[in-house]
């Protein structure tokens, strides 16, 4: 660890991975250089939405975007008194220059998308920028509204001299965040940031009004076990994620390490994606049959999946929407009564598949493990989700029999054409829950009489196979069928991808995130209607709820649990991280928005 910096002034965070190119801060390149943590410390954008609280933050912008009536023009008013780390003031010129540079260099990030909409960008005055759009877009500001990231603003005074923005390394970077780079490892294992003396002249300084730790060191220790050891030795304060085994090993070794909950179920449960198992609906076989998918869902035992496979640490969800406190307020809770009454027809008989006892049964399991969990049902629902589908293999069997499936002498299922029923689920092992849920589903379906195996794939081939529809079943994450999760009521961002315009047959890369190859007129209608209205329109919520129902009816994919993360911190040197007791912001320190969280940290004085 750096010798010349007192540990009390230094926050050490997990760098997530080793940077293969060190000393390159051109964060506008299409896929790199990698940005975790850097982006929150030294870049900035116009707006933020804290995904924990749903709070809208005006960062570089002074106010919310101002659209004209037909959404073809967006005006942005910028904050004054913000400076670059080299002392230059931040003005409309920087924003205009950034957008123009991106528009002009088609390989850069956001370029293609901005080109789709922006016809013109200009400044009205030093602190007002105007975007003229090619087509109406009521959600154009989302490019500049950060969840993970958003268009980073470039310093015009530096970049205007750059001949080829694609080749420029931007080293050392001029910062718009509250930190500057003090040192970096040429081998890419660590980077050291220092708080700007003029930190008050940044958006964070103006919004939060507090400085963060004087120094931030990001460091990559290697695989999880090394991070655990490092944190147990107090050489790491904050790390991105662990599997439950590593986490337990860590808290067994360290008094001061913890995650979101002080005790079981430990992990931060509010990430915005959903884990699901999806089927390729476009293979021309029985997976396209909704009833078959329902049968498969009913053959799963959610309680066992959630407990035995992922350690009881996650919220179950029957709809393709994570049950975060914010979102469940709009979707899960209001839909509960509908779910309870929801009926499917099994061989002519109605059947209510919903099972609201799931959280209690999970709690039972937890108690049996020796954990303390609340008795209160509401608290359990907040912890483990509202409910899920019944484990009803008998019903599943009936459905399948009615569809022409048969069991052979050994009790194994044969498909309607008489073949043994077998398939693989593709899943990436490094996405821990996804993978383990796939293992669990495979085990349960195998026990049910289908030969199911899990095919482990690295990220890239996994993406590629999903993209091409080269799978029968995939254990994936996202907004159920693709699309992008968000922390707002408006579901348009993740619904629009499923429009049948973007449907592509199996074998051609999916045009959007519609990897499951969903095609539905009803869905198209919802998307079109939603796209035409403002995200703030109350109708947006109704349409979102309709979308959820439609999904359940069709069982396009089987949503399993909300995304959770063992974001883990060590309170030995620093405290006041956001926690379940004090959920003031998102703990996702590698998201650009974490810049508003870091100032809240307090040294323990050690």
């Amino acid at each position: 660890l750096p010798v010349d910096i007192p540990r009390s002034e230094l926050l050490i965070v997990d760098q997530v991975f080793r940077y293969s190119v060190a000393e390159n801060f051109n964060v506008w390149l299409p896929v790199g250089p990698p940005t975790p943590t850097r982006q929150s410390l030294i870049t900035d954008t116009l707006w933020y939405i804290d995904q924990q609280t749903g709070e809208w933050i005006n960062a570089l912008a002074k106010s919310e975007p101002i659209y004209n009536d037909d959404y073809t023009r967006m005006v942005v008013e910028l904050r004054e008194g913000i400076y670059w780390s080299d002392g230059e003031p931040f003005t409309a010129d920087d924003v205009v220059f950034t957008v123009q540079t991106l528009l002009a260099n088609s390989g850069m990030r956001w370029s293609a998308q901005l080109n789709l909409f922006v016809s013109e960008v200009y400044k009205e005055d030093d602190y007002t920028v105007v975007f003229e759009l090619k087509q109406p877009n009521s959600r154009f500001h989302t490019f500049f509204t950060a969840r993970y990231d958003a268009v980073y603003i470039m310093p015009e005074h530096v970049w205007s001299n750059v001949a080829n923005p694609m080749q420029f390394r931007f080293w050392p970077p001029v910062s718009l965040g509250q930190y500057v780079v003090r040192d970096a490892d040429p081998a890419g294992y660590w980077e050291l940031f220092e708080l700007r003396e003029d930190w008050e002249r940044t958006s964070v300084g103006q919004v939060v009004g507090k400085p963060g730790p004087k120094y931030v060191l990001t460091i990559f220790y290697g695989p999880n076990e090394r991070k655990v050891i490092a944190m147990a030795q107090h050489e790491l304060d904050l790390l991105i994620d662990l599997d439950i085994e590593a986490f337990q090993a860590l808290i067994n070794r360290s008094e001061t390490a913890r995650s979101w909950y002080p005790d079981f179920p430990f992990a931060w449960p509010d990430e915005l994606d959903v884990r699901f198992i999806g089927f390729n609906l476009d293979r021309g076989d029985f997976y396209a049959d909704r009833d078959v998918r329902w049968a498969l869902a009913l053959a799963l035992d959610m309680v066992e999946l959630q407990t035995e496979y992922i350690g009881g640490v996650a919220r179950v969800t029957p709809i393709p929407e994570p049950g975060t406190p914010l979102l469940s307020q709009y979707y899960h809770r209001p839909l509960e009564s509908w779910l309870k009454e929801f009926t499917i027809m099994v061989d002519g008989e109605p059947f209510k598949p919903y099972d609201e006892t799931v959280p209690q049964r999970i709690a039972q399991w937890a108690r049996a493990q020796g954990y303390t969990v609340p008795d209160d049902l509401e608290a359990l629902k907040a912890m483990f989700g509202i409910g899920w589908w019944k484990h009803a293999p008998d019903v599943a069997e009936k459905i399948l029999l009615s569809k022409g499936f048969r069991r052979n002498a050994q009790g194994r299922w044969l498909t309607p054409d008489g073949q043994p029923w077998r398939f693989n689920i593709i899943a990436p092992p490094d996405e821990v829950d996804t993978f383990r849920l796939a293992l669990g589903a495979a085990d349960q379906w195998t026990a049910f009489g289908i030969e199911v195996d899990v095919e482990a794939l690295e990220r890239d081939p996994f993406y590629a196979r999903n993209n091409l529809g080269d799978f029968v079943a995939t254990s994936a994450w996202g907004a159920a069928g693709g699309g992008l999760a968000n922390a707002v009521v408006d579901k348009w961002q993740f619904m629009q991808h499923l429009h049948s315009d973007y449907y592509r047959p199996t074998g051609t890369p999916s045009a959007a995130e519609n990897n499951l190859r969903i095609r539905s007129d009803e869905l198209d209608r919802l998307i079109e209607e939603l796209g035409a209205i403002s995200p703030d329109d109350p109708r947006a919520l109704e349409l979102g709820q309709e979308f959820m129902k439609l999904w359940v009816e069709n069982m396009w994919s089987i949503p399993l649990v909300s995304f959770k993360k063992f974001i883990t911190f060590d309170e030995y040197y620093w405290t006041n991280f956001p926690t379940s007791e004090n959920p003031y912001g998102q703990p996702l320190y590698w998201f650009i928005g974490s810049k508003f969280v870091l100032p809240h940290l307090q040294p323990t004085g050690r």
Partner: protein
Amino acid sequence: MEVLRDLLRYDRRFLIGFIITVLVLLVFPLSLLSPYEPTARRVVPTNLPPSWEYPLGTNALGQDIAWNLIFAVRNTLIIGLLSALLSRMIATFNGLISGYIGGVTDRVLSTITDSLIVLPRLPILVFLSFVMRGQLSIWGIALILAFLDWAWPSKRYRSQVLSLREREFTETALFSGMSTFSVVTREHLPFLVPYIMADVISGFIWAMGMEITLSVLGLTSLSIPTIGTMIYWANYYQAILRGIWWWIGPPVVVAIATVIAFYLLSVSLSEFLDPRTRLQRIKVRPEMG
């Protein structure tokens, strides 16, 4: 049989190697007795330490580690032996032809061999399995490994044959009317046998190492138990951090023991088969002025 008895009685290395090998080879019959399917999970309670019921405990996937190990060793042996045999077959064929026929044939074959030698094997291997993963059954792995491992042995065999070709008995064979094929297979091959034996073992050791490497990187079919995938899963479930030694320990120990056993066997066998010692055993060679 007599050979075996002699070796067992007089060569301690062979004895040790033999005993371990027999124990290791027991996995083949044993694997037939397994109460579980090789790929089955959730058949026993998870994460139990060794006990009478589960002599090596159970793992986080709900598998009985003892049975799992038996399958793992069996599959790894299959991969290793298959790949070693296959590659040595290619190598022998190529080396013999190249060395004996010589000329243009030799030049072409040697260039191919040399080109293969300069290719960095591990990266290519990792890459190939990365590309073909999922489709990679144990046979597939064995095949790829075999493909990457014949060049060196082939070069060695070739140089052996080159020197054998200069020996007078080659010409005697020729003038006994033997065809090229017979000369190569019946005159030269027997000399190569000890080398090939030793080489098959080292090929096996290499293949096993590679299987472990690939599996540990997660590049093989993870649901098929092999020594490598066992280690993979143990790592995946943090066996080391959590001190579950009964999961990570057995594959490591068995891997080491197997390799050493095979190595010992190969050393003493090739010593035994070496024409020089072999002759010594039969009779002292009379020398002539």
